[in-house]
């Protein structure tokens, strides 16, 4: 079947997310502004006030109330969206666990921004990484196009009765949120057909009164949590099914991870978000010089794409995992810790080293990335990793 190419609109990452939400027939948006997510809510407010969407937009008085209102609306059976960043995500932290515990299929755009203190408005992943155990499905977009595509898919993944978990779609602050790209968008009818009206598995309905949020003591809490684990375990196959359908519609190749030039790679960089774009560009340059390098970019960070990652690295000699967040006191960064644990239990002898970079929006340049690749190549040569853990780009 020949895909019809969609029209291309110049959209920033924030605008792309708002545009996707517009097409998804969302019933309720409850959001609070925070740089650099503000454009998402502002753009969406324009749609609401111009009658371009039929959505109740609640300008809540804090992010904590934003997630609270979203949960209330979701429990009522509505399709719900919100967006936040950094301090806002941190403020709604307790509500994230409640949203996933109550199995609310909320979709949230997170514009990854550094956590205070010191206060900083630029991009790193400390906000989402600080909440990585909250039970949400977490997806990282490399560019505005991916942000647009993933928001649409996120609703379908979240609302699937085998999943029923909330989903975040993450983009890097300013690098993606405020940079304009040509984004190929689908027609409204295509999206409506792909994403029909939500069918809740349970809801607050006076004709069928249920109690939601009961006190589960030591005798029941564990079982409810185990159900959440089960949902997370079923999520990868649902995500694969949804991406397959979307790929056919939009001529894309989404999945749990993206591999770039990995077929015969000796070394690779793994990272999340926009840095992967830089890594791919550098990889292309090094390939031209005959160096066998590749990039692994998980789209889905939670549930961790264990099988896909193990498959991608099976013939690799050295993997450099880049974390854009610092786990203070932990032996390695969050992404690297996950990778190391699955490699260890596989009995893999892959050499790994970890670089923490880009905190507070510190730029990671092609030079930095090339240095990482060269270090990996050197380790592949010598069979020894010089530095297991390093900071990239900080002034001593």
């Amino acid at each position: 079947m020949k895909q019809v190419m969609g029209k291309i609109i110049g959209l920033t990452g924030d605008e792309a997310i708002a545009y996707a939400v517009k097409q998804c027939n969302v019933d309720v948006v409850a959001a609070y502004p925070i740089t650099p997510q503000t454009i998402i809510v502002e753009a969406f407010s324009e749609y609401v006030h111009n009658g371009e969407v039929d959505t109740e937009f609640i300008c809540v008085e804090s992010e904590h109330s934003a997630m609270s209102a979203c949960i209330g609306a979701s429990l009522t059976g509505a399709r719900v969206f919100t967006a936040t960043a950094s301090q806002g995500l941190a403020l709604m932290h307790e509500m994230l666990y409640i949203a996933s515990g109550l199995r609310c299929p909320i979709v949230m755009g997170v514009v990854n921004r550094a956590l205070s203190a010191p206060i900083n408005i630029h991009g790193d992943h400390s906000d989402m990484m600080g909440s990585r155990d909250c039970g949400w499905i977490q997806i990282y977009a490399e560019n505005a196009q991916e942000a647009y595509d993933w928001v649409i898919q996120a609703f379908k993944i979240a609302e699937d009765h085998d999943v029923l978990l909330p989903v975040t779609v993450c983009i890097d602050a300013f690098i993606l949120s405020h940079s304009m790209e040509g984004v190929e968008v689908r027609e409204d009818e295509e999206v409506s057909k792909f994403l029909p009206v939500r069918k809740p598995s349970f809801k607050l309905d006076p004709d069928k009164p249920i109690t939601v949020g009961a006190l589960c003591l030591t005798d029941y809490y564990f079982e409810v949590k185990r159900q959440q684990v089960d949902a997370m375990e079923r999520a990868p196959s649902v995500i694969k099914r949804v991406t397959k359908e979307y790929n056919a519609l939009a001529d894309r190749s989404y999945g749990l991870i993206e591999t770039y030039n990995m077929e015969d790679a000796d070394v690779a960089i793994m990272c999340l978000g926009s840095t992967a774009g830089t890594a791919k560009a550098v990889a292309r340059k090094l390939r031209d010089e005959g160096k066998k390098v590749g990039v692994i970019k998980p789209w889905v960070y939670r549930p961790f794409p264990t099988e896909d990652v193990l498959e991608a690295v099976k013939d690799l000699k050295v993997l450099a995992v880049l974390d854009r967040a610092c786990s203070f006191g932990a032996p390695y960064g969050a992404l690297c810790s996950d990778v190391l644990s699955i490699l260890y239990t596989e009995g893999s002898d892959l050499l790994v080293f970890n670089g923490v970079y880009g905190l507070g929006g510190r730029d990671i340049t092609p030079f930095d990335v090339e240095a990482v690749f060269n270090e990996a190549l050197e380790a592949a040569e010598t069979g020894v990793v010089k530095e297991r853990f390093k900071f990239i780009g900080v002034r001593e």
Partner: protein
Amino acid sequence: MVRLKDLPVEELFTSGHRLCAGCGAGIIARMTMKALRGPTVIVNATGCLEVASTIYPFTSWRVPWAHVAFENAAAVASGIEAAYKALRRKGLWDKHVDIIAFAGDGGTFDIGIQALSGALERGHDFVYICYDNEAYMNTGIQRSGATPHGAATTTSPAGTKIPGKPEFKKDFIGICAAHGIEYCATASPAYWNDYITKVRKALEVEGPAVIHVFSPCPLGQRFDPSQSIKVARLAVQTRYWPVYEVENGKYKLNIKVMKPKPIIEFLKIQRRFRHLFQPQFKHELDTIQRWVDENWKRITRLCGEEIP
């Protein structure tokens, strides 16, 4: 005017809950359920009522009921209201559903004030009922912004140096009225007719309405369970708890207490004030009587007829 025999027999808040014997919150919840006019959804903040009525797998509720967290009953109610509105507009839902948010003084005065303020300012159509037992009772009787001056709580104990809570109670309905909402009122479960009438009035409002109802607590306020309604009545009869309503900014006194009982009548029946009767703290009793008198003067003046 409500007649008891006209109230529905059906219990939408059933027996079998684990509230203390004589609990004011139980009385208030039952009375509220008698006042409903149609399909209703309850949002309940964390607290005595929520915990005791929904211990898995038991629930005392026969209406849709949601507990989400402690400080956000008003925010959750906002989301539910918006959802029904959106779904109705899209033809995915057919009827109007009343929304009642229950929260204690714990989940309202202090940690919950932000969410409530936001919801009132935005004008969501729901009723917020604060059942005020004047402390964080569910966690073991710690002081709240609703605890009166002099009351002993576990975080404002009756010490040898500081006799109970030094601060005075917040004017909660004043805060609500300042948001310019159509209706807010105080109530006491001892005056069931007044309370049920107010719940019905609040449900009729298209927009937010708040009811602040005194909730006697045998365990935390320290009196025999059989005295709950008596305490709730004394609260009003001593003018400690003026019963009034504010409709579009206009104050109206509902229960005119012409010959008030001295506040000591209310204080001496509750052992949370017992320490104030010691000789070294007796002046506190005068302080409290003065506060009650000033507050009564202030409220009745607002009602347009200062009653001495």
